[in-house]
């Protein structure tokens, strides 16, 4: 089963890190990602640029409005996403508990795990409606 993991981090904490601290952090994360990949648990993922580079779209008075910045302004922003392949929620929790990124900023980062919805049935139904 697939689990979408949203990694939240405090960008201010990241900004305070020295270059060597950042490098160590990256090395650890990549090394663990490799573990996940080798064991067939890594089904995709990306790191995200700072939230100030985000654009947010909304439907407003009959047209699309675009604002700059993230959907919600807050200290913790999504810094990365990952798709995990795991047998169940506890397996996903266990895999992610070991991710080095969790230790960034001593508690200022967190992972939200969201089980993916199996859309197959919805898609088949929708295909039938459209055919």
């Amino acid at each position, binding site marked *: *089963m697939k689990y979408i993991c949203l990694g939240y981090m405090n960008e201010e904490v990241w900004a305070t890190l020295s270059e060597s601290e950042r490098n160590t952090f990256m090395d*650890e994360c990549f090394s663990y990602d490799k573990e996940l990949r080798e*064991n067939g648990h890594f089904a995709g993922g990306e790191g995200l640029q700072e939230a100030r580079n985000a654009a947010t779209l909304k439907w407003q008075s009959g047209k699309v409005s675009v604002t700059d910045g993230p959907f919600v302004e807050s200290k913790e922003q999504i810094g990365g996403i990952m798709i995990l392949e795991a047998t*169940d*929620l*506890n397996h996903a929790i266990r895999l992610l508990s070991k991710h080095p990124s969790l230790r960034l900023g001593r508690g200022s980062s967190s992972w939200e795990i969201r089980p993916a919805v199996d859309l197959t049935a919805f898609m088949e139904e929708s295909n039938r409606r459209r055919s």
Partner: protein
Amino acid sequence: MQNSSEHIFQLVGDIYRNKSRSVFATLIRLLKDFDLAEDAMHDAFKAALEQWGEKGVPSNPLAWLVSTGRFKAIDRIRRESKFDPLQKQQVGQMEADTIDPSNVVDRAIEDDVLRLIFTCCHPALSLDARTAMTMREVCNLTTEAIANAFLITPSTMAQRIVRAKAQIREAKIPFEVPPEHDLPDRLGAVLQVIYLVFNEGYYASSGESVTRVDLSSEAIRLGRLLHILLPDPEVTGLLGLMLLHESRRPARTSPTGDLILLEDQDRSRWNRDMIDEGLTLVERAFLSTPPGPYTLQAAIAALHAEATHPDATDWRQITGLYSLLLRINPSPIIELNRAIAMAMHKGPEAGLRQIDAILERGDLTSYHLAHSARAELCRKTGRTDQARVSWERALALAQQAPERRFIERKLSELGT
């Protein structure tokens, strides 16, 4: 052909389905950690898929899987110890361990499954935690499936499992079959979990979704497993009890989902095979003296199963069995059941006196079945007004829709 990839895939799949819990249990004993053992078990099966085709199937596949899993775990900790200095220590310790898993014999592996059951059902864990751990670690159900079966969210269930494992680790709950003098108590905690799972499936309200696991058959499967590993008379009794109850399932609800009482069930629809197996088990369990609470309940179920017609029920014996049960397990619910049996045996007046005594004492006053039973006996003795009062009280307390419909029907039958 023997080692074709298709053959290997099927063989490993079969072993995974039938024996992965055994491999897992032995790995927990060797590695002393649930999570590590789960990863190691998966690693071992993956290695089997990769290696057996080329190198041939080992002569003892289970021992191979255990041994490979253990090495993979040590490898894994060594790699991960980069991230966690505490684990470095663990690696050294594990490598120094003198256990040679290639010596593991099948009997030892079976004992490990029993250890796993006793650990998951350790009385230091709450009943909820015990149930969750048993369903996931012994029955190999996913967190989502268990949550779905117990009608709670997967995240609540996941948290329960994480906490239970942490508690086992932190409280250093040993991975062992309890010593002889603790066995009756500790076995009681295991049987309680199995019976709870069974009842959750048996008495659950309708509205099940397609993905809902059948908890009753899961409990029976677990009962059978425990019965093979530890043929204690009470295990035999519980398995018999579950089978005898389960045998009535086809007859206990109407096509519209309404409850059908035991006396109104079409007994030809009871599952004969389950009854025969249940009766044999009850007889065997009853050989031990004194019989335990599950055996006594099973014996009561057996007397119902043996009656081809409600009138042929041996209520005298059933009343006697409830009295024995009450002696070892004093509970107002059992007292209520004995009162109902007594009403059938000695007449409604005798039963009514007993129920009134329980209610006057202040017990079961918010238990709808006590009021239902009282209402029925009042009706039989011609106390229509009192019957109505009791049915109304029962209706105010009943939660499930089929039960409410049943009571409403009874009320309307009383007339005005």
